[in-house]
């Protein structure tokens, strides 16, 4: 059929080719277009849809909305005059805010030039970091519930080869059943003590074993411990009856014999509870930092008083009398002496039977929270002040002043360095002398504590001396000139 012209209509039944422009004054309707290539603007007055209808993959409507159901790849800059949203989880605000309701993963985040958060930590210059708490507890100093955790204070002075003694202030060592008693001491560290030295520790507490020729018998034991006042636990901020609230114990340890490091913690108020702990093995002669997380428990009780609340104990060796029960490692259970440590712990027996084996610890910190923080280093004066609540030694020239009751019996009062935990006991190291000022010194024959005039805050001493010193009732007097005694209110 050829081209037909009928009235105003033209019918072309075959392919058409136009070598010049085609103008259409009315509506152009066409189907099965393979490609549209416009060298000018394309105007779609009712929108554009891409894909077969219904269910088009992308559309641009005349109101300016664009919907794309597949992946959109944009090679250039996206300029958005309003917010950009990704689902309901992420919003990039036009004002610069980014909100993400899910997890954001990034290897490094920088805030200006001052703060960098990376996998290795947070670096902040300028004013640093402001926060209300750290590790779930107060951001104040004195996080450490252990006193003298670096073994720096030792008012009693010197080492001792004894069954039991304070090897440093607040640190008690005890043994029983030994063939040869151990030596308790403080050891100076040097730069060769890699680990604790770099963290500023210069002293470690040490026990050196004796020669236990008969082996570890059932009732034998040796340990180091520190006791903590109930007041300090009750008011520490530890929600101790909650199993999701924690104390964290951290310390450096070294043993001359490869061994397991462990011990037990016990309470005293209410029904005594114990927590047998282990922090794994250490190689011989290698300083290792250990961390223990201690949960609360509904059976724990700490009263608000000055009595003992908690004991933290490091085991050197326990005989089978103390390891025969169920240790329940890592759980709080009612105290029983039969299960203070798990049986067969690495090195428990070997350490005991190794003559002169050593066990060192330092940098001990017990704090509220589930993570260990850096050790609190205090000045000597600060730590000494904390220790003198429990022990103080007095041996300066003129220690106390008083009044004679007679030629043989006098009374002196004085204030301890600070209020003590309780009315103290006295250990007399040297009696010294007593003098009525302006006369000669006379030997003291006995020095006793007088309960009537002694409490936490003040101490009254009964001073006995031989007659003939020229003193009589109401004479003012002084003691000293060699007097040396210690006051103890340990727990």
């Amino acid at each position: 059929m050829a081209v037909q012209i009928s009235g105003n209509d033209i019918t072309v039944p075959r392919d058409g080719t136009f070598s010049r422009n085609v103008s259409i004054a009315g509506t152009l309707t066409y189907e099965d277009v393979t490609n549209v290539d416009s060298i000018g603007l394309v105007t779609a007055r009712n929108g554009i849809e891409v894909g077969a209808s219904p269910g088009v993959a992308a559309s641009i409507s005349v109101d300016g909305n664009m919907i794309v159901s597949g992946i959109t790849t944009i090679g250039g800059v996206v300029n958005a005059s309003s917010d950009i949203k990704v689902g309901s989880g992420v919003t990039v605000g036009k004002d610069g805010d980014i909100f993400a309701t899910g997890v954001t993963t990034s290897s490094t985040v920088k805030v200006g030039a001052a703060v960098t958060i990376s996998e290795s930590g947070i670096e902040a210059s300028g004013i640093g970091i402001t926060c209300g708490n750290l590790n779930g507890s107060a951001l104040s100093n004195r996080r450490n519930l252990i006193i003298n955790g670096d073994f720096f204070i030792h008012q009693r002075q010197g080492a001792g080869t004894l069954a039991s003694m304070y090897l440093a202030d607040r640190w008690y060592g005890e043994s029983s059943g030994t063939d040869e008693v151990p030596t308790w001491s403080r050891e100076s560290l040097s730069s060769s003590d890699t680990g604790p030295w770099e963290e500023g520790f210069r002293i470690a507490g040490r026990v050196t074993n004796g020669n236990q020729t008969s082996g570890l018998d059932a009732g034998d034991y040796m340990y180091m411990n520190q006791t903590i006042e109930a007041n300090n636990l009750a008011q520490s901020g530890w929600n101790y009856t909650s199993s999701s609230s924690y104390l964290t114990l951290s310390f450096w340890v070294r043993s001359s014999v490869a061994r397991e490091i462990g011990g037990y913690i016990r309470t005293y108020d209410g029904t005594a509870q114990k927590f047998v702990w282990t922090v794994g093995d250490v190689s011989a002669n290698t300083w290792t930092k250990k961390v223990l997380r201690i949960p609360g428990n509904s059976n724990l009780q700490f009263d608000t008083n000055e009595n003992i609340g908690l004991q933290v104990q490091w085991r050197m060796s326990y005989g089978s009398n103390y390891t025969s029960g169920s240790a329940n490692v890592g759980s709080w259970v009612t105290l029983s002496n039969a299960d203070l440590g798990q049986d067969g712990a690495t090195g428990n027996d070997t350490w005991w039977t190794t003559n002169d084996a050593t066990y060192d610890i330092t940098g001990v910190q017990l704090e509220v929270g589930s993570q260990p923080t850096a050790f609190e280093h205090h000045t000597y004066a600060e730590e000494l002040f904390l220790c003198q609540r429990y022990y103080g030694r007095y041996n300066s020239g003129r220690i106390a002043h008083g009044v004679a009751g007679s030629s043989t019996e006098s009374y002196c009062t004085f204030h301890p360095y600070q209020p003590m935990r309780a009315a103290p006991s006295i250990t007399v190291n040297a009696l010294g002398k007593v003098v009525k000022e302006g006369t000669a010194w006379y030997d003291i024959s006995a020095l006793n504590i007088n309960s009537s005039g002694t409490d936490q805050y003040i101490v009254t001493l009964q001073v006995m001396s031989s007659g003939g010193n020229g003193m009589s009732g109401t004479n003012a007097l002084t003691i000293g000139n060699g007097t040396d005694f210690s006051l103890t209110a340990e727990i």
Partner: protein
Amino acid sequence: MNETKPIKSAKFVASYGQNESVIITYEDNSVLGVPFDNNNTDYQNYLDWVAAGNTAEAAD
């Protein structure tokens, strides 16, 4: 385990006829003058020793 040292003997100290403290001698021969204070752990240890049937020597 023992957490207090075992006591060997004890003796009161008097002032004007009234006991004012007790001198404790431990098994290791260390000596301590102890006030009558219930919060003092040495005194608590002494009371346990007395409760076990022991008696302190009278004051001079």
